[in-house]
C-alpha cells in the first residue's frame, strides 16, 4: 500500500463505455499522481459521471483497464472499491436521509469494527471498544468539516451546503487514498464556491489524499486543480494545467466559448 512517487494513485488506460450505440466514454486515459487534485470538466452529458461510475464499479467498462496504486481494479464491485480506499460523493447528494449526522459517518467506518455477531449481542469488550472508537472517529471527522454541533440532527434536515460537507466527511470515514467528488460546488454561489475550494484544499492537506473531481464552475477548477481533463461527448479534447486548458482553442469552442 506504499506510495512511491513512480506509481500513480489512479491510472485509467483506454477505458471505454457504451450504452447501446452511445459512446459515453471513448478511449479515456488519465494518470493521477499522489497528492494532486485532478479536475474533470465538460458540458452536460460529456461522460464525467460515467467515468466515476466506472472507477467505483457501478458499471464495468467495455474496454480498457483501471489501476489503483498499480493494482488492476477493473470491474471490482462498488463495496470492494470503497473498502480498498476510494471514497466518493454523488452529484445528487445521497445521504442516509433519516439517520442522524453522526450515524451517517459511523456507517462508513463500520469495517473498522472487528467485533462479531455474538460480540454484538453480548456487548463484549471488543464491541464496546470498537463502538467507542467509531464514535470518536466520527466526531473527529465532523469537527474537521465543521458539523460537530449537529451530531444528532437528521441528515436531511441540514442545509444544502452542510449536506455536501457531511457527504465528504462520510467518504473520508473510509480512510480513502483517493477521493472522488462529483460536482461539489453544484448549486453554490460564487462566495460558497470559494469557501468550498478552500475546504477541499484543506481536506487534501489534512488527510494527505489524492482527489479527482468533476466540476462545472471554471473558477473553482482554476483555483483548485493541479491538472484537468476536458471531455466533450465522451472524448478527451484537452489535458493539462487549468491555464493551458483554458487557452486551448478546441476547449474554447466546445465549452468555454458557448
Amino acid at each position: 500500500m506504499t506510495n512511491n512517487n513512480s506509481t500513480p494513485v489512479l491510472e485509467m488506460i483506454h477505458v471505454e463505455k457504451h450504452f447501446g450505440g452511445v459512446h459515453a466514454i471513448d478511449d479515456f486515459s488519465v494518470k493521477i499522481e499522489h497528492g494532486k487534485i485532478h479536475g474533470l470538466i465538460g458540458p452536460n452529458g460529456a461522460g464525467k459521471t460515467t467515468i466515476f461510475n466506472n472507477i467505483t464499479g457501478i458499471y464495468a467498462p467495455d474496454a480498457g483497464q483501471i489501476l489503483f496504486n498499480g493494482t488492476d481494479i477493473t470491474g471490482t464491485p462498488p463495496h470492494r472499491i470503497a473498502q480498498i480506499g476510494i471514497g466518493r460523493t454523488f452529484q445528487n447528494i445521497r445521504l442516509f436521509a433519516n439517520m442522524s449526522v453522526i450515524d451517517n459517518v459511523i456507517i462508513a467506518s463500520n469495517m473498522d469494527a472487528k467485533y462479531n455477531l455474538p460480540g454484538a449481542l453480548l456487548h463484549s469488550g471488543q464491541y464496546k471498544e470498537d463502538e467507542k472508537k467509531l464514535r470518536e472517529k466520527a466526531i473527529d471527522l465532523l469537527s474537521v468539516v465543521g458539523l460537530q454541533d449537529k451530531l444528532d440532527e437528521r441528515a436531511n434536515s441540514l442545509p444544502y451546503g452542510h449536506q455536501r460537507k457531511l457527504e465528504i466527511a462520510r467518504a473520508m470515514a473510509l480512510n480513502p487514498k483517493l477521493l472522488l467528488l462529483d460536482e461539489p460546488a453544484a448549486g453554490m454561489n460564487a462566495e460558497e464556491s470559494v469557501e468550498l475550494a478552500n475546504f477541499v484544499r484543506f481536506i487534501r492537506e489534512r488527510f494527505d489524499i489524492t482527489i479527482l473531481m468533476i466540476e462545472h464552475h471554471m473558477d473553482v477548477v482554476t483555483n483548485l486543480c493541479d491538472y484537468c481533463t476536458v471531455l466533450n461527448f465522451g472524448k478527451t479534447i484537452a489535458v493539462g494545467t487549468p491555464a493551458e486548458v483554458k487557452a486551448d482553442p478546441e476547449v474554447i469552442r466546445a465549452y468555454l466559448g458557448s
Partner: protein
Amino acid sequence: MIELFNNINASFCSLFGINSYLQGVIIMVCINVIAVLGMSVLTGFTRLFSFGNAGFMSIGAYATAILTVRYHVNFLLAILLGACFAGLIAFLLGSITLRLKGDYFLITCLGFGECVRVLFNYTKNLTGGSAGFPGIPNFSNMLFSVICAILAFFIAWRFIHSKYGRNLVSIRENEVAAEAVGINAFRAKRMSFVFSAIYAGWAGALYAGYLMYIVPASFNLAKSCELITTTVIGGLGSLTGSVIGAILVTVLPEVFRSMSNFRMLFYGLAVVLIIMFRPQGLYGYKEFSLKRLIGFFTGKNKKAKAEGKEGA
C-alpha cells in the same frame, strides 16, 4: 422437563390469578411478537418485503413437531433446530433471490410461502398432510412464551444497534450510497432475511407447542399478510412499535370477538388509513422512550423543538 415448566407456570398463573383464556391470549401475543420482530428487521429496517414469512413459520413449526414427536428431542433443542432450519432455508433462498430487485424478490417470497404450504400438504408420511400433525408436546406455556418474546426483543435490539443493524438501515436509506461506503448490500440483505426467517421459525415452533396440532393451512398467505400489515401498523423502523403493533393486532380481535369475521377487513382498513395519514406507522422511526412520553405530557418536547427551530 416440560412438566416441571408447566408446573412452575401453573403456580405462577394461579398466584397472579391469570386464567387459561388470558394465558392463551398472552401466548398468542408472544408468538406474534416474535414473528413480527423478525419481519420488522427485514421490512422496517432493511425495506425488503417478504410475503413468505408464514412459510418460514411453518418450517419452524413442522421441524420442531417432527423432532419432538418422532425423535423425542428435548423441546428447547427442537425449537432451536427448527428456527435454525428455517434460517438455513432462508439463506439458500436468499442467495438466489436477493440479487433480484425490489418487487421480484417479493414475488419469489410469495411463491416460496405457497410452495412450502403445498409441499407440507403433499408429504403425508412426514407431515400428516392436510389432516394435520397431532400429538406435539405442550411446551409453549405462558411463562416460557413470555421469556422467549423478551429474549427475542433483546436480541433484535442489540442486533439493530450494532454495525450489522446500521448496515441494514443504510441499505434502506440509500443502497447506492451504502455500497459506496463499503457495505456489501447483498450479504447484509441476506443476513436480514435469515434473521427474519429464524424469528419466524421460532414463532412457528412456539405455535406448534401451544396448539399441539398443526395444519399447513394455518401458515397461508393470509398469515404472511398479517405479519406484514402488523409491521406496517407498528411502524417501519421501530422495534418497540412492532411489539405494540403485534399486541394490538392480537388483542383487538379478542376484545371485539363478535366481529372477528371482519378481522381482515379491519386490517385492510387500518393499513389504508395508516398509509394515508401516518405513513411512518404508529411509531415511525422512533423507539418508545419513557422520557419522551413524560416530555409529551408535560409539553417539554414541544418547547425544546420550538427553541431548536429558532436556533436554526
